[in-house]
């Protein structure tokens, strides 16, 4: 009887995890809209605005550096801005432009640039 109760619960949990899974494909559009102007079309930190900035935007292709950042760090930097993670104030908070779910999608996309090369 107990086993019969656990199986549907496990199925439900699996379904929930799937729903919560971030979608890097969706995240790519957010990256294009909000990030490439500073971080560059290729994510290398040389966007169209970078030349005039006092602090260079992060190179998202730098695997060694980016792999040390947790998803939570990246999420916080996007949502609350650079200052919230002790980085530059020039990285703005995007909390009014994206929902938490959309920011998770964006984090997933950043991971594809920085840390999934050659996989």
């Amino acid at each position, binding site marked *: 009887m107990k086993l019969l109760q656990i199986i549907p619960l496990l199925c439900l949990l699996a379904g929930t995890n799937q729903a919560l899974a971030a979608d890097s494909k969706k995240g790519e559009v*957010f990256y294009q809209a909000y990030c490439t102007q500073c971080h560059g079309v290729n994510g290398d930190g040389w966007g169209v605005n970078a030349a005039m900035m006092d602090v260079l935007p992060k190179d998202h292709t730098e695997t060694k550096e980016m792999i040390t950042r947790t998803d939570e760090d990246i999420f916080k930097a996007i949502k609350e801005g650079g200052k919230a993670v002790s980085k530059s*104030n020039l990285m703005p908070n995007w909390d009014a432009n994206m929902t938490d779910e959309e920011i998770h999608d964006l984090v997933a996309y950043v991971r594809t640039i920085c840390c999934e090369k050659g996989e």
Partner: protein
Amino acid sequence: MKATILKKSGLVLLSAATLFAHNAYSATDIEAGKQLFEKSCADCHSITSNDNITLAQRLKEKAPTLYYAGNKFNREWLQSWLAAPTRLRPGGHFFMDNVKVTEDGDIIDESKLGKHMAVSAKQAQQLTGYLMAQTPKSALIQQESITLGKTNRTLGEKDFHKFKGCGSCHQDEDGYGGVSGPELYTSVKRLQPEFIASYTKMPEKWDPKTLMPNRHLNDNSVKKLLNYLNVISQ
């Protein structure tokens, strides 16, 4: 006695009518402006609500929305700009459409930037009449009470670039600042100060898929910024 009063009231009415006519456009002009807009502008500019637009749709827009043009622009500036337009966004409406990736970093490919069409002085008047009648966001404008003042240019510049980070995307002088947003050294000439204040504080209330972040600035911070924009627009 009665004749004098009537004469005086007549003069007051005449003065009011003259004053009104100075800032108003005739119904015929507005209708002509509407027809001209639909024929020549509607391919690139939207004039309907953008409340439910998706980000993907927003990125495909060819030009800024004119849905709330009457809440946004200074009418005198708009009318003269339509007759002799100049580029206000160094990177175009959406910079990604005009980016060229080079070994020295991404740059705006100037050859991709188009020129805005110009219209005759009469057509500019008609279009301005129609556009200035588009005021769906007056409630947001009414929340603002702005008196433009002075500020120290050096401190204002530091605030603009370093503390508020506006200079990352916007230029505060020709050729200095970011290129993905519109130039701001002409902003006070172009835009109603109440619009600048409201848009800066709550950009997503104007355009739910705006590319501008809401930096949660308080009234005093916005006032300081507006005074700087005022100084650099002189």
